[in-house]
């Protein structure tokens, strides 16, 4: 399973992008997104932004899975009626030919979006708890980034430290 992760700013500009791929394939090649589809990743991701922006202001996110239709991510046990429930993690927001799109919103409205895909076009399964933990940890890293006095909100995050940490988190939570 491989992922394409991006932080999208307020003006729908990419602030950070990364691609995480699991392991080497049988021929030693990197098992990532299919080469021909890879170029489409940013487009697929941006296509889901409308849904995210709609979900952003939902009082209670009972629509979970509704937008995604089939896909069967499952494992969503949180009670949606509870108004105290956290609404940062939006869960699965969209899907595109077997690619699942999950999203997360920070308090400042930055969109963390991730495509979960496979080298073959079969529907992938995602573990919500792991994905959520990944997002939360990246959120913390992002918060530390904006505390940097030399970083302006909305600029691309070019720090190699940030990059290495995000990739480590991806291995920890998503590298299965």
């Amino acid at each position, binding site marked *: 399973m491989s992922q394409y992760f991006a932080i999208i700013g307020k003006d729908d500009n990419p602030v950070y992008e990364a691609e995480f791929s699991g392991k080497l394939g049988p021929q030693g090649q990197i098992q990532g997104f299919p080469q021909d589809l890879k170029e489409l990743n940013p487009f697929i991701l941006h296509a889901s932004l409308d849904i995210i922006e709609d979900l952003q202001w*939902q009082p209670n996110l009972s629509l979970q899975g509704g937008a995604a239709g089939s896909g069967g991510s499952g494992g969503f046990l949180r009670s949606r009626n509870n108004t105290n429930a956290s609404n940062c993690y939006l869960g699965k927001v969209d899907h595109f030919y077997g690619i699942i799109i999950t999203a997360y*919103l920070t308090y400042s409205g930055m969109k963390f979006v991730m495509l979960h895909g496979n080298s073959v076009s079969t529907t992938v399964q995602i573990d919500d708890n792991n994905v959520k933990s990944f997002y939360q940890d990246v959120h913390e890293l992002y918060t530390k980034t904006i505390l940097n006095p030399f970083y302006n909100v909305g600029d691309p995050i070019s720090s190699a430290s940030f990059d290495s940490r995000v990739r480590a988190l991806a291995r920890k939570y998503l590298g299965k």
Partner: protein
Amino acid sequence: MTDKLILTGMPEEQNVHSTTGYEYIIGPKQSLPNEANAPYIPSKIYSESILYKKQQVSLMSMAFLYQELISQIYKNSKTSTEFETKLSNHGSNIGFKLLDLLNLRASVPSSARSSTFLPSNASLTGGNTGETGGASTNTNTSTILTGYIDKSYESNESLSNMISQLRRRDLKIIDILQFIHGSVWSYLFGAPSNDLVKSSERENEYMIVDNEPVLTQFISGNFSCNYFMCGLIKGFLSQAGFECTVSPHPDVDEIYPNRVVYLIKFEKQVLEREALKFGA
């Protein structure tokens, strides 16, 4: 060569030749399996915990710093509007940063106390009491931020390990204003603001009252200096999706010669959105 020359001065990113960060022009980089055991690139910013620690700044040095900020801006501004905008922008930048930081911190459960930091079911008395705003200060928001230090977590790098559930994003005007009134003020000045009032005349106006503004308490005769706090409130709210303008107004009486009312005027679309999502 030039890259290396520059990098020698930046101990934070020494290893940059082997690993580089995200580059906007190139696009996403693939993570390679051979990087799996690569160590973190050392960085002070990312390895320090952002957990709340009680820290105090001398009021005197703060006052001198603020004084210098004001005189710099004053010197470089031609009109009073320019002065106010510049000062306000300085505040906004801090508001941006506080939004994520304070919300994350508020998500950390207080192990010492059972109460949550700012219960979202907190009664709305703080805001809706238009005329009788005097006694509405919510008491349970005040002490927790200043009191919470847990030694065992100090060396812990990650805050998110301690968070079982993140604080809700504030979707309603009244919720986020309560947060500013309670948590933001406590973080900045050690106590919640003196009052949070909704205008009885206009739908989109709210007021935060500060009896003794800390930053401008030594400045007399120029009320515009309060635009820094206005900018901070504005930055905080706008970044969270509540576009607004904030302006300071004097409300002087015998006991509080410096009292300031921060008048927050929300944009039309914010009210429309709220009516659409939460309307009866």
